[in-house]
């Protein structure tokens, strides 16, 4: 990795104080994102992938809070910015696409209102210019008759169309990074791939980096350059998509790959990972995956593994160290 990364997250910890003690939802994760790169973040629900996104854009809901580590955007620390500065950065430098397009648009305002307001908040343009820009953006995301649709209300659009509007909204001030939090989960299967391709195309055209949060390994395989697999608030494995998919190193990733049905391939039974992810208040010591792992060793139950290089990628598993030593 050469040059300065666009986004750099180091040892990020997110905590939720609760009546029964502090829950650690994200426990020391680190990753980098280069300009124009698409990073996929996968994991089961509750693994902390959405929280990572909200932490980066500074929208953690109290009582959730960043308890440690740092987040840098082009080298500049953004996790401790004052609220006003962070507000200016949101939308302008980091955009976000939410999961459900049906609920992420304000029902009482026309989409024109919403786009123009966002543009004028961040860019020094006149209302006339903002309007032209809005029309151009809507055309770019594939809304037909964009000029007339400016005065339409969100409920007059279908789900897929609304998600296009949401993407236009996220991109309207030319951010360097877009965080897309499960952008297709709430959509019909038939439009999911259209939206994913649209997001990919538009971001490539604008040179925008994407942090694509999803639980769908298929989407990642199709879209991302690199992927981070999250488990129980930690990164289990991170690396180039091809590597991770072709030769996953972490037992959890291997399990995940076993769980994708393949259209072309063999008719093997889909493998399933036994058990389920631990709740936040009962994360086991050592490797969080150890109770479900077929290869658990004594060390896994006591000591937490760090990311260990495995080919092009890195994985947090003691087995790797063992095989490395064995091959030496």
């Amino acid at each position: 990795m050469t040059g300065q990364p666009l986004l750099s997250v180091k040892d990020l910890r997110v905590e939720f104080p609760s009546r029964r003690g502090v829950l650690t939802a994200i426990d020391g994760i680190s990753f980098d994102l280069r300009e124009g790169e698409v990073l996929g973040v996968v994991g089961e629900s509750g693994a902390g992938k959405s929280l990572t996104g909200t932490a980066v854009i500074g929208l953690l809901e109290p009582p959730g809070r960043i308890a440690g580590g740092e987040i840098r955007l082009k080298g500049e620390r953004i996790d401790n910015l004052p609220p006003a500065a962070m507000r200016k950065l949101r939308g302008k430098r980091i955009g976000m696409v939410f999961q459900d397009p049906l609920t992420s648009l304000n029902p009482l305002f026309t989409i024109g209102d919403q786009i123009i307001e966002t543009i004028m908040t961040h860019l020094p343009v006149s209302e006339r210019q903002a309007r032209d820009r809005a029309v151009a953006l809507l055309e770019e995301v594939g809304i037909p008759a964009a000029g007339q649709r400016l005065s339409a209300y969100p409920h007059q659009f279908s789900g897929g169309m609304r998600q296009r509007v949401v993407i236009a909204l996220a991109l309207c001030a030319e951010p360097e990074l877009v965080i897309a939090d499960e952008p297709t989960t709430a959509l019909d299967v038939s439009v999911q791939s259209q939206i994913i391709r649209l997001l990919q195309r538009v971001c490539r055209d604008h040179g925008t980096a994407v942090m694509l949060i999803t639980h769908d390994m298929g989407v990642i395989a199709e879209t991302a350059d690199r992927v981070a697999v999250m488990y129980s608030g930690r990164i289990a494995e991170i690396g180039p998509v091809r590597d991770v998919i072709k030769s996953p190193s972490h037992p959890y990733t291997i399990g995940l790959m076993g769980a994708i049905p393949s259209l072309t391939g063999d008719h093997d039974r889909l493998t399933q990972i036994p058990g389920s992810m631990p709740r936040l208040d009962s994360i086991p010591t050592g490797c969080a995956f150890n109770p479900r792992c077929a290869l658990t060793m004594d060390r896994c139950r006591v000591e937490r593994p760090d990311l260990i290089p495995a080919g092009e990628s890195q994985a947090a598993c003691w087995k790797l160290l063992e095989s490395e030593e064995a091959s030496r």
Partner: protein
Amino acid sequence: MLAFTIRRLLQAVLVMLVVALISFTLFRFVGDPVNQMVGVETTPEQREALRERLGLNDPVLVQFGRFITKAARFDFGTSYQFRQPVAELIGRRLPATLELSFVSAVLALLVGIPMGVYTGLHRDSWLSKLFLSISLIGISLPTFFIGILLIFVFAVTLQWLPSFGRGGVVQLGWWSTGLLTWSGIKALILPAITLGLFQMTLIMRLVRSEMLEVIRTDYIKFARARGLRERSINFRHALKNTLVPVITITGLQLGSIIAFAIITETVFQWPGMGLLFLQAVQNVDIPIMAAYLMLIAFLFVTINLIVDLLYFRVDPRLRVERAAH
């Protein structure tokens, strides 16, 4: 939109008919009207003649029809206690009640909504907690006791404001207003606060809880994620979404303000219809009770109609869905 309006109008008419039926039943069957109108020495023949003349021997449906047609012309017969036409009695008292109710409602809205927005946005600030405590006390204090407290402090102890009556009144056609004289305005202050306080706390708590709800929605989160200005998020995007329920409840509240005026008018001896109605209840003056009931129902129905139409202004979703029907 038109179809919707017509349907609402029909519903309103239906409600009015039901209320008219209740009023009529009161009027006709609770206490014999003839007994109320004649003395002890009246002979049975005279009574019978009066019954015939009043149409009390006609079929009930005919009587009900007559009651409604008369009611539509504001003819509710003669008060038993005052021996005067009910419509005239009420007409004379109406302006006092409406003025009081209107001023209270405006007060409740102007103070309640900003307080609600503030407490919704700054949940944990000490000022919010203070507002909330005050509102709880406001809800727990019975209206009449608020009035008495205010009288005790501002009229008896400090002697700043009058404790009863309307003060100087100016006649504008058939409407009498106290808003044009200084003494009239001074007389209005305490009753208006008394009447408005309860509604104000209700509106404040409603706006607050709606605000809390709206602020959690995805579209507000998305607005934040787009870096919109805090003020625009709170006062444009969030507030507008709280308005639909607020309009509903406020509409209902405005109606109940007019009814609650009974209490305030009693405490402050305010010469409005509430006081008239209370005297009617105590003296079993059925025509006044019936007329008051009809009038209140009419005001309610009108307010509800206006509220429903206001929805269309606020919520674009309704416009389309209704049109599609």
